[in-house]
């Protein structure tokens, strides 16, 4: 929801980034205020997931230009774990499996690390068990998932639920959901998006990275951005996503090229 007096959480200016020396992000500008839901859409290879990874601080991506300010901090000064503790959360497109570590142990470690950052009390295993079981109801998750290895043998949908469960536990200020809808059947999509909606408040913000409009039927965005070749080439409201669904991505690219050419001639 767009609020008049909401504060800026995330400010990206002229962001450029490379992977293995190849430039993927070629100047991104984006402002996200508290209470807002943004959708970043685009075809495969447009740079959406790279943007998500750069925000979370993956060291395989080199930032070569621009700035990112998150709640007043220069994000580049923060290690990935410091970003997480400051309230930035990335729901992974492909969550990692860690056999040998129980999901409950992992979730509690993450929860307590972030709690400690806020000067709050940590929970012991028993207290945490009660707490996490409540949160799992939000996502219609079977408590058995606590005893299994982190994401070990989880189906695609179960992994995505586990990501949103982490979001529910960590209560981030800014959540970036990278293709959270992929691999979900229609029932799972409804449950997961419903969970996300319940976590959305006027004080936090959500950035959805997605290929399809499907998820946006459930989580209604305030802004839709179209990425192509490492840039945001069009920004609109939720109706833009519906346009993309019916007309595809090509027309946006064509419109953008025409605008660029017109600018060059003028």
């Amino acid at each position, binding site marked *: 929801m767009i609020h008049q007096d909401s504060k800026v959480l995330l400010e990206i200016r002229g962001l450029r980034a490379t992977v293995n020396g190849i430039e993927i992000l070629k100047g991104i500008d984006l402002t996200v205020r508290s209470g807002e839901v943004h959708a970043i859409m685009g075809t495969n290879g447009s740079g959406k997931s790279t943007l998500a990874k750069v925000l979370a601080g*993956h060291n395989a991506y080199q930032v070569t230009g621009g700035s990112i300010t998150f709640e007043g901090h220069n994000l580049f000064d923060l*290690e990935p774990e410091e970003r997480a503790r400051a309230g930035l*959360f990335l729901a992974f497109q492909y969550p990692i499996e860690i056999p*040998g570590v129980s999901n409950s142990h992992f979730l509690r470690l993450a929860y307590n*690390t972030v709690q400690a950052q806020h000067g709050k009390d940590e929970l012991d295993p028993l207290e945490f068990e009660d707490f996490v079981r409540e949160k799992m109801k939000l996502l219609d998750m079977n408590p058995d998932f606590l005893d299994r290895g982190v994401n070990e043998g989880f189906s695609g949908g179960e992994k995505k639920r586990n990501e949103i469960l982490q979001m529910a536990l960590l209560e981030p200020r800014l959540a970036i959901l990278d293709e959270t809808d992929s691999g979900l059947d229609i029932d799972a999509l409804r449950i997961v998006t419903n969970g996300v909606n319940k976590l959305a408040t006027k004080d936090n913000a959500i950035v959805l990275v997605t290929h399809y409009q499907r998820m946006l039927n459930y989580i209604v965005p305030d802004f839709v951005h179209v990425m192509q070749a490492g840039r945001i080439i069009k920004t609109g409201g939720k109706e833009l996503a519906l346009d993309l669904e019916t007309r595809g991505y090509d027309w946006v690219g064509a419109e953008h090229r025409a605008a660029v050419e017109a600018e060059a001639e003028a």
Partner: protein
Amino acid sequence: MSMVTSSSYLESLLQGQPQLPPSPLAWFNQLRASAVDRAGTLKLPTTRDEDWRFTDISPLAKLSFQPARAVSTLQAADVEGFYLDEAAIRLVFVDGAYMPQFSTQPDKARDLGLTVTDLSSTAVSSHGTVIEPHLGRHAGFQDNLFAALNTAFLHDGALVVAPRNAAVDAPVHVLFIATQPEVASHPRCLLIAESGSAVTIVEDYVTLQEGAYVTNAVTEIVLEGNAQVNHVRIQRDSPQAFHIGHCAVSLAHASRYRSVSVALGARISRYDLNARLAAEGAECAIDGLALISGRQLADTHTCIDHAQPNGISRQLHKCIVDGAAHAVFNGKIMVRSGAQCTDSTQSSRNLLLSAKARVDTKPQLEIFADDVKCAHGATVGQLDIEELFYLKSRGLSEIAARNLLTYAFGAEIIDRIPVASLKQRLERTVFEQTKRS
């Protein structure tokens, strides 16, 4: 400790043999005598032997080890810490000698439907016909000096018999405690799981001292048709010790053998596990973990022999190597020409925690049947950066993330141990030993 040459080393090892009291079973005495003869003709392996290429046991021959003396001063309080809550039955051996005062009474096993006793006990005579076809028949000593030495010293040892269709959940704990430095002991186990039975055995090597000693263990496990055996083997000998272990498993029709072996201790350790799927539809899962540091060397050799059709084998072997330690894994999978429709997977995964740590891994497939499904692979490396990033993105520090992943690497094997208290104890060990701060 005096310096001796290789041949006098063997003589010194065999010194205690003639003093062993004879068994009332003639075949038992014959078996022992032929092992003595054989041991006298075999030589200590060197790194020129293919099977010992990476494992130089010459330090063993530089020391002289005596047969263990009887121990009388040990109190229950000294050894209770090693007991397992879940174990209904326990056999305790101290420096190789059976300790009835620390072991559960034989009638306790009988109540559960098992025969569990010391091999030297008079009870063994009454099981002579059950034992004779198996003792010394699976772990052959013709070409194996250490098995020959062990058999030459056959006296005390663990005998576990699960009669037909007996199913016992509670594990049988066979605990070998080393208390004296500069001695050699020859632990021995024989487990016979009769048809349709199900039993769990924990073979546990621990120490109350930090000195150098030799543990030379042999275990034979026999699974009759449809039998199920869970076998856990934990080696936590002293950091100066030498541990040589040999286990031979024979699987009959549709039997299922699952084992988890963990090597934590010893300066030099070597474990050979040979499983023979001798009849159709047998199944085995053989997992291992070596967690070593300092100047330790841990060598695991396994051979899974698919001799008959429709067998299944699963193997995951892991090594976590720190300091200047050296881990060796040689995993042979043999699929004989008659063993059609064999389904076998093997994976060797290794984690190096320091620049001087070393792993030599050699998966070895020998397939003589044409309709089989076999997959194997080996990896050696450091922690995965995607896994590290995932944990850091959830707020964990670099060190916490590394510690957790290293722990997880080992815990994946430990998790497969079907005895909760042992699992927890070992998980703590893995965490403490790999933790950085």
